[in-house]
């Protein structure tokens, strides 16, 4: 009826071994309590098959079955894979907004508003300087102020444009680094796939390798969005937007990265970033396209697009400002009577933008050339009209001497006492009201359209208008004009631009906070399931320790029983 003399020893041995294994696992859990990505493991114990097994023909008759002890069925990872996919999706969104927030924080520093040194203040000062010039057109210090203020404004434009370009360059570098990180993670995952495949083939459970692979997937999820396919051999495939990055033990990505092209497609509401990796330098000849719809890479792409937009807005502002100021400036006259001069010019040529806007050198060297005056040289009506001068000095008196058909330009530097001729006399044959004549020499001259009837002999005073600031006033009044290319005034355009930047940066900041909270919550739930609780492990430790002790005690009892049977039953 019994299962044999030594039957129980084996059962006790199994108890010892299994509890030892369970203690070993508890020890492993405790040791990894702080390991990132570690999933707690639990020994799943099952009773071994009872003796005898149910069969038609079995020893000893019916009505009994003796348990044969315990065995370890598996060492299980306690993990919820649904949570994994949630955590990864939200981590990707977090990464995306973090990158946008980080970039926009830098852009905000570039524009430095509200402050006393931002473009807004400089624009105000620019308009104010023209107002002052309108009042003090003959004043050299005021003219200097206009130049200095305009130069400061142009330099602020240049500086901001340069900073935005730097940020764009930094984003390109960051994308390159992130793509390299993706390649590195993919290689590591493929390596782990190989190891996992071997362990699975041997029928074992590669728990710690799976943890490491999951951790790599978590990291990858912050950079881009992907889907995971599980293969029956324990390996996984990683796909991004239909493109395979990892197929089991093969990395589909090129090993090195030679160039990147960046496209952000925002035609569809869903933003996506396509990165093309050129593998030609690595022996391959095809380019590799990954379309990304989430994660840090998408955030970087979107941030790049935003910065590019800000640069364009800034360019538009600089271009329109230069255009409007130049147009009026060209119609005016400098103190030397000259006209048709630009105020702003593009440094290095081309079209004016925020990067190259600068104040014309000629004006910086001689602020007297600023066209504050809308009349220039005034000559008496008897002589003609439309007079333009060049090189005339506002401190000098000029007159035109008429003698018969000969006109001659004279100047006096001592207030009208002593007069000297400039150039030689010019003879006019027909007074028809359309011919232009130029009096004077190359350095000081007046060009005008003669009248239709010849003037009488005598001297005609030529006046310059050093105090006329009406053209400067026209430029100052641009401040309140709605500029067609902007659809609003300069000040409002810049204010709207700043507000838009603020709203976008604020939104990004809010999204990061919310998303961080969501990720923290999900990660907390995952930790709650998979994390190691030391109190719990201590409790299990006692349980397994006592289990081990009890099994050993069974072994002792059996031993004592056999001692009785073998040693105490001998004849004395």
């Amino acid at each position, binding site marked *: 009826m019994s299962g044999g003399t030594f039957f129980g020893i084996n059962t006790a041995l199994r108890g010892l071994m299994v509890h030892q294994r369970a203690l070993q696992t508890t020890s492993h859990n405790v040791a990894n*309590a702080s390991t990132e990505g570690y999933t707690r493991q639990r020994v799943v114990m099952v009773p071994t098959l009872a003796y005898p097994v149910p069969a038609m023909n079995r020893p000893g008759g019916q009505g009994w079955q003796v348990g044969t002890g315990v065995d370890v069925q598996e060492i299980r990872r306690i993990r919820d894979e649904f949570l994994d996919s949630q955590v990864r999706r939200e981590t990707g969104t977090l990464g995306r907004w973090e990158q946008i927030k980080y970039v926009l924080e830098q852009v905000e520093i570039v524009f430095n508003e509200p402050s006393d040194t931002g473009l807004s203040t400089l624009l105000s000062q620019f308009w104010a300087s023209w*107002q002052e010039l309108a009042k003090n057109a*003959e004043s050299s210090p005021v003219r200097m102020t206009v130049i200095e203020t305009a130069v400061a404004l142009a330099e602020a434009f240049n500086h901001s444009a340069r900073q935005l370009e730097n940020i764009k360059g930094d984003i390109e570098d960051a994308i390159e680094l992130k793509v390299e990180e993706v390649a590195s993670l993919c290689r590591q995952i493929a390596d782990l796939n190989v190891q996992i495949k071997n362990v699975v083939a041997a029928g074992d459970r590669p728990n710690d390798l799976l943890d490491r692979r999951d951790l790599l997937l978590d990291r990858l999820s912050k950079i881009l969005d992907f889907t995971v396919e599980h293969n029956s051999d324990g390996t996984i495939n990683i796909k991004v937007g239909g493109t395979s990055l990892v197929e089991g033990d093969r990395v589909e990505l090129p090993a090195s990265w030679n160039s990147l092209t960046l496209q952000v497609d925002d035609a569809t509401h869903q933003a996506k970033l396509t990165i093309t990796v050129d593998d030609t330098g690595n022996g391959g000849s095809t380019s590799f396209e990954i379309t990304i719809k989430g994660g840090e890479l998408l955030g970087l792409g979107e941030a790049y697009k935003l910065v590019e937009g800000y640069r364009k807005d800034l360019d538009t502002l600089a271009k329109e400002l230069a255009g409007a100021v130049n147009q009026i400036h060209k119609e005016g006259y400098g103190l030397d009577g000259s006209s048709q001069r630009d105020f702003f010019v593009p440094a290095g040529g081309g079209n004016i933008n925020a990067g190259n806007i600068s104040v014309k050198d000629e004006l910086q060297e001689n602020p007297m050339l600023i066209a504050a005056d809308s009349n220039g040289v005034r000559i008496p009506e008897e002589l003609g009209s439309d007079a333009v001068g060049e090189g005339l000095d506002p401190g000098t008196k000029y007159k035109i001497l008429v003698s018969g058909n000969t006109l001659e330009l004279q100047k006096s530097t001592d207030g009208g006492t002593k007069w000297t001729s400039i150039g030689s006399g010019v003879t006019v044959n027909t007074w028809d009201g359309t011919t232009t004549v130029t009096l004077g020499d190359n350095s000081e001259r007046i060009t005008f359209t003669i009248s239709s009837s010849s003037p009488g002999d005598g001297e005609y005073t030529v006046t310059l208008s050093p105090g006329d600031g009406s053209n400067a006033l026209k430029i100052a009044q641009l401040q309140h004009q709605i500029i067609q290319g902007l659809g609003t005034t300069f000040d409002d355009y810049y204010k709207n631009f*700043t507000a838009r930047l*603020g709203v976008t940066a604020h939104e990004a900041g809010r999204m990061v906070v919310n998303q961080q909270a969501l990720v923290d919550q999900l990660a*907390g739930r995952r*930790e709650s399931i998979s*994390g190691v609780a030391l109190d719990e492990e201590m409790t299990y430790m006692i349980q397994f320790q006592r289990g081990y002790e009890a099994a050993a005690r069974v072994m002792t009892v059996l031993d004592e029983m056999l001692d009785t049977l073998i040693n105490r039953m001998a004849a004395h």
Partner: protein
Amino acid sequence: MRVTNRMLISNVLTNINNNLQHMSKAQKQMSSGKRVSRPSDDPIVVARVLSFKTALAQQDQYDKNMADARGWLDASESALNMATATLQRARELAVYGANGTMPEASMQALAAEVDQLIDELVQTANTSYGGRFLFGGTVTTSAPFQRTFEGTEETVSYNGNTGSLDWEVAQGVTITVNENGNKVFMEAVGPEGSKKSVFKLLFELKDALVGNDHSAVGDTIADFDQAIDHLLNIRATLGAKSRRLEMAQERLFVAKIGLTETMSKLEDIDLAETVMYYKNAENVYQAALATAAMVLQPSLVHYLR
């Protein structure tokens, strides 16, 4: 829900970090005195602050323009005041000279004084303000009036032009600050269309006195009356403009105070409120630290022997 040791630690870290951030924000506000330091802090407030700053800068400029315009107008007015006094003196002399009993020697003495008055009036007409000639039109850098001899005839010529100095005193509103010397002095007396200058009038008086022609002297009196009226009219215009600007400046001053106050409300912190906020954040932070010290220590490990 299971609670693990890592959860406790990460919660503690998150909370301590959050509280530190609150403290840092309050510290930044207290030290800068501003509620917003960049657009994302509060985009709407920042946009409004920028608008207010632009508006304030504009108003400051208009205020300066008005003050400058008043200076120019007042200087012109006082110059014309002197010119009027000169003409009144000349009129008195004309009244004396018109008296037939005046001996010839006295007539010559009167003529000599008129000659002085001409110089004085030229000087007045060449008055400069801040280095700029008031009555030369837009020729502000050289004296507009010059007493010269043309052949045997003595004249005062005008070398300025008829340009006006228009300054902006409010958005789109300009005011002409200068009175043109040609209008003031050169076209002062006589019938419309053939007006003569006050200088010509003085030369006529002088010539009549020199010529001992009592009736010709008497003929100038009516012209002097007209010239003095002419100057008085211009002075009245200048005074009215100056007063108008004074009132506008006062209005602007009140508006500026309002703007500054509103901007301050938008932009500046309420110190008491911010300090309270900071102290609160500091308390919460300390509580978080204390809680961490209590929560992180006990574990079953301590009790198992």
